[in-house]
């Protein structure tokens, strides 16, 4: 299988003069899981928003499999194969769970029967088959998150960006999620980027980490290298380590 990448080069984003991202460069390859970490307000969600076109880049370029997508609209970027989830789940609440998953397949050109089949297969894979006909507005928090991931996968993305996928899940659900996510890059030939605050989850899941603080990259590389960087320990892991010791 060929490798492609989603790349941002020297990406900057400003909100009314406040610099939310400052010349950040990041590369996500198909077949890998990249963890995006950093303290609150460091620009993680803004980076995902910029990569998916929800926030305009002030400078810098974004390419997807070699094609420049910097100024495309969110729906156009989605059609290039970049899917995402949201920190606060956004489902189509009046549609059924199955219809939610179907929508992404329909956008990719599937007929309704084909979208239905693909949706049912995905729900089966994610252990959600029993909920297929339930309205999406009536789900538990953990199920909502998994339906959102199923919907993203129905578009058959090459890159999947997940913003805190484990938020609100209990220990067991979190473990199941890690197992499911770990298998994705190889099984579906996609690149997975995961934002999460929960360090043990990130450590188990990711091969590579990218660390942001105050909108700047302060470290990147494989997990072992990054966790030894003094800037990272100070900005992020230090705090987390203290919290872990307290718990």
């Amino acid at each position, binding site marked *: 299988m060929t490798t492609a990448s989603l790349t941002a080069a020297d990406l900057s984003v400003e909100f009314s003069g406040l610099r939310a991202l400052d010349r950040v460069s990041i590369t996500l390859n198909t077949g890998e899981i990249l963890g995006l970490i950093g303290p609150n307000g460091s620009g993680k969600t803004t980076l995902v928003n910029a990569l998916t076109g929800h926030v305009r880049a002030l400078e810098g370029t974004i390419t997807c499999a070699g094609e420049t997508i910097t100024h495309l609209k969110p*729906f156009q970027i989605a059609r290039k194969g970049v899917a995402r989830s949201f920190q606060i789940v956004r489902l189509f609440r009046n549609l059924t769970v199955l219809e939610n998953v179907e929508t992404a397949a329909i*956008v990719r050109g599937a007929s309704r029967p084909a979208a239905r089949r693909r949706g049912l297969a995905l729900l089966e894979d994610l252990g959600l088959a029993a909920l297929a006909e339930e309205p999406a507005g009536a789900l538990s928090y953990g199920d909502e998150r998994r339906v959102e991931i199923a919907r993203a996968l129905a578009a058959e993305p090459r890159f999947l960006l997940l913003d805190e996928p484990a938020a609100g899940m209990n220990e067991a659900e979190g473990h199941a999620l890690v197992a499911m996510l770990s298998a994705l890059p190889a099984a579906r030939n996609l690149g997975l980027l995961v934002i999460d605050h929960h360090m043990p989850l990130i450590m188990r899941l990711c091969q590579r980490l990218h660390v942001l603080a105050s909108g700047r990259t302060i470290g990147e590389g494989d997990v072992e290298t990054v966790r030894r960087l003094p800037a990272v320990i100070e900005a992020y892991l230090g705090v987390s380590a203290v919290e872990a010791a307290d718990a």
Partner: protein
Amino acid sequence: MPDRRTLITLAVLVAAVAVSVAVAELSGVRLIDRVVTVMCINLILVLGLQVFMGNSGILSFAHIGFMGIGAYTTALFTLPLQMRGMVLPNLYDVLATVELSPALGIALGGLVAAMVAAALSFPLMRLSDAAAVITSFALLVVLHTIMVHWSEVTNGPRTFFGVPEATGLYQAAGVAVLAIVGALAFKESRTGVLLRASRDDEVAAHTIGANVPVLRWRGFVLSAFMAGVGGGLWAHFITSFSPNAFYLKETFVILGMLVIGGGATVTGAVVGTIAVTIAYEGLRAFENMLNTEQVFDGTVVGLTEVVLACAMIGILVLRPEGLAGSCEIGATALFRRRPQPTGERP
């Protein structure tokens, strides 16, 4: 192949129209025949509004303007040639020689309404919420103003008369059934599903790759086509009308029917149309009785409008999803397949 629930919904709603027709036929009363005919025409208009509003979640005031386009188009092309000089003294020479049958005229009315909608609405479909509602209202005002002032084809604010009478109970009911099929098919189509998704969460719809303005535009054009056909049928029923027929009063009635029934579903459109028609006719009879019996000193007027307005307020406060609720009749517990008995009891 549509799923079972959609087919059940279709069957029940078509049955509701069939029962209404049967009541009119069996009663043999001319007034009831006319009431049911108008109800079927209104149903087409309400379903047309539901196609856009129910699926996209955007309130449109422009709908009745497209009804007017359909009515004037068929009136213009079906008016007997010898009457044209009398009704439309300033008609363009090109149009003075064409005469169509009412069926063709009504179809053409729908097409013209759809084409006007297609051309005008594209920039508007980017708008959401209040901006979309206000621009649709502005569009109604523009369409109305054109009808009032384009004397060459509409006879201006004066009455356009002499339209051949061609719409009877069966024609109206037949087209209403087609409108039910169309509205259900659109709702379950690929465009319909994505449009409903964008209604629930526009940002998420962008994120899955849906081009929301284009989806809305398709719904709007189909909606205008149905309004145009409804307007054409009405023109051949009433045979003479003026631009005021396609303005605020009619907008309020059609919108009221959809809101009271429940805009999110085709079932709601049918329930609202039938319920409001029955209430309207009941109130009108009551009002007449009050006036002929001289229960009060003065005459009672406007009872129907006031009650409809209060009903709308009451529904929006107490049951915002409308009388029919948020799911189609075929998807309610009434028709849920019972689990097969397993044969053994624990």
